[in-house]
C-alpha cells in the first residue's frame, strides 16, 4: 500500500465570482521510503497538493489516502491528530518557535493535543539532535543558530513523532547552495534510515538529483 495516494484529487477556490482550479483531478502515489521531488512554476498547484497531502485542507472532490486511510472529510480535531501523529512538516520559512530552544522545539510536538514531554520524548529529542549534529546546540534559541542549523532543527521537529509521511516545502530557499544541498542530503539520509515517505517541493534544480523521482506540475496537473 503506498504511503500517500491521491486519486482524482481536485481543489477549487472561489475568488470573487470566479472559480480557480488549483489542482485538477490529480493522481499520484508515493511509496514508503520514496523521496519524491515535486517541481513546477509558481501557481502550478504544488503547494495545494502539499496542503491536501498534509490534511491541512480537504479536496473539492477525489480522495487523499495516507497509508490507506482517507484524509478528505476529516473534522478539524481528527485532521490535527493526523498531522500530529503521522505527518512531519518542514516549512519554507522554517517557522521554529522563537522563544523555545532547539530541544524544546522538538519536544513541543509531543506537548500538543494534551500530550506530555515525558522521558521517552526527551530521549528521542536528544537522539535526533545528535543525529542532526546539533547536540551541542540543544540549549540555543533559534536566534542564536545559523540558517542551516535552524533548518536542521526543523527537520528534527518533523521527525519527532516518527511520521508516516514527510512533507518538505522549499527547504533551500533561505540558504546558500552549499548549505542547501547539505540540508537536502540530510533529509535524504533520514528518509533512507527510517524508511519514511517524503515529498519535497522545490524550485532548486541543484538538489533534484537527491530525490528518487521527479514530478513536474503545470496549471494544476501533473505533466506526463
Amino acid at each position, binding site marked *: 500500500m503506498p504511503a500517500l495516494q491521491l486519486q482524482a484529487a481536485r481543489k477549487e477556490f472561489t475568488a470573487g465570482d470566479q472559480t480557480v482550479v488549483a489542482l485538477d483531478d490529480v493522481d499520484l502515489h508515493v511509496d514508503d521510503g520514496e523521496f519524491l521531488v515535486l517541481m513546477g512554476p509558481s501557481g502550478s498547484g504544488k503547494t495545494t497538493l502539499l496542503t491536501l497531502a498534509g490534511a491541512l485542507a480537504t479536496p473539492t472532490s477525489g480522495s487523499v489516502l495516507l497509508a490507506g486511510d482517507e484524509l478528505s472529510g476529516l473534522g478539524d480535531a481528527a485532521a490535527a491528530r493526523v498531522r500530529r501523529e503521522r505527518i512531519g512538516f518542514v516549512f519554507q*520559512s*522554517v517557522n*521554529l518557535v*522563537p522563544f523555545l530552544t532547539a530541544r524544546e522545539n522538538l519536544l513541543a510536538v509531543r506537548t500538543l493535543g494534551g500530550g506530555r514531554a515525558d522521558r521517552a520524548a526527551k530521549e528521542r529529542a536528544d537522539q535526533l539532535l545528535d543525529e542532526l549534529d546539533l547536540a551541542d546546540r540543544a540549549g540555543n534559541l*533559534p*536566534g542564536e543558530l545559523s540558517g542551516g542549523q*535552524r533548518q536542521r532543527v526543523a527537520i528534527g521537529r518533523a521527525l519527532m513523532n516518527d511520521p508516516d509521511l514527510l512533507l518538505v516545502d522549499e527547504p533551500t530557499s533561505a540558504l546558500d547552495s552549499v548549505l542547501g544541498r547539505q540540508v537536502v542530503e540530510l533529509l535524504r539520509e533520514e528518509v533512507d534510515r527510517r524508511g519514511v515517505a517524503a515529498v519535497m517541493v522545490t524550485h532548486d534544480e541543484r538538489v533534484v538529483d537527491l530525490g528518487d523521482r521527479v514530478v513536474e506540475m503545470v496549471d494544476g496537473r501533473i505533466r506526463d
Partner: protein
Amino acid sequence: MFLAIAELRRARGRFALLGAAVGLLVLLLLFFQAVAGALTGGLTGAYEQARADVWVYDDQARLNPQGSVLDEGAVDAVADVAGVAAASPVTFTVFDVDGEPSAVLATDAGSPALPRAVDGVLEQGTAVAGTSAFVEGDAADLLALPGVDLDVAATADGATFAILPTYFAPRDAVATATSERAGRDVPLPTSAIAVAVADGEDATAVAAAISDAVDGVEAVDRATAIEGLPGAGTITRSFGILYVLLYVVVAIVTGVFFLILTVQKRDALVLLRAVGAERGDVVRPVLVQVVVVVGVAVLVGTGAAVGLLSAAREVFGAGLDVGTILTSAGAILVLGLVAGLASLRRVLRAEPVEAVADGGL
C-alpha cells in the same frame, strides 16, 4: 491621513476595543466628578449661594458651624472692624420638618447668609427653602416648627446645608421653636457671623483683620469656609486621588496600545522611511488615530455619562457643567496624544537602512 484612516478601517476591532476601554474610563471620570460635585453641593450649596464674603466662627470650632458658639457681643465687634459692610448672626440648627430632619438656619432679613437669588425676601413670619436634587424630599410649603409656623415664601435651588433639606428662618421664630422643643426658655446662640465686605475690600484681608481684632473668633473667606465645612474637604481630596488614578490609567492604556501597535508595524514603518517618508509622515498617522479613537471614545463616554446621570438624577442629583466636561475631555485627549507620541520614539530611532537588512528568522 490616508494611511491612518486605511488602518482604522482595516482593523476596526482592535481600535474599537481601545475606544471602549477609554470610553469607559471617561465615563468613570465624569461620573466621579458629578457625584463629587453633587455630594459637595449638598454640603456647601447654602454657602456657595450666600452673599457672604467672610464667615466668622468660634476659634475652637475648626470651621464647623454646628460646633461653633460665639459670645454675645461678637456680632457688634465684628461689625466695627474696618472693611465690614454688613455682619449678621446665623444659628445652624436641625429640626424635624414633616418627619424629615432638616437644617434650619436662623438669620435676619437682608442677612449676607441668605441665598443671593432671594436676598431680602425673608419677611417676618416667612421662611426660604433651599432645595437640591441630591437631597431627598421636596421643600414644604409650610415650615412647621415647634410652637411656630412659617410660610415658605421662596425657594433657592441648590442652597442646601449638610445634605439636608434647608430652611432660612427669622431668628426670633427659631428662638421660639428651640425653647418650645427644650421645654424651657433657651437663648438662641450664635453659631457664626455672615459678613459682607465693603466694595473694593479684599475678603481675605478683612477676614484676617476680624480674627486679629475680635477675641475668640476665627474669620475666613468664603472659599476657605466652604473647604472647611465638615466632609467637603474629605470628599474633594478623596475624589482627587481617584481622578489622578483614572488619568494615569487612561494614559497608560492608550500608550500601551499604540506602543504594541507601533512595534508590530515597525518593519512597515521603517520600509516607508526607506522609500522616502519623513519622520512627520510616520508620526502624523499615529496622531490622527489617537485623535480619532480617543476623540470618539470621549464623545461616547461623555454621552453615556450624561445619559446615566440624567436617568439616575433622583439618586445622584446634579449633572455636569460644560466646563467640567470640556476640561476632562481635553485632558484625556492630551494624555492620549502624549502617550501615542511616546510609543513612536522607538520606531523613530530606527534608521531606514534597516529595511534592507536581514532581520528575520
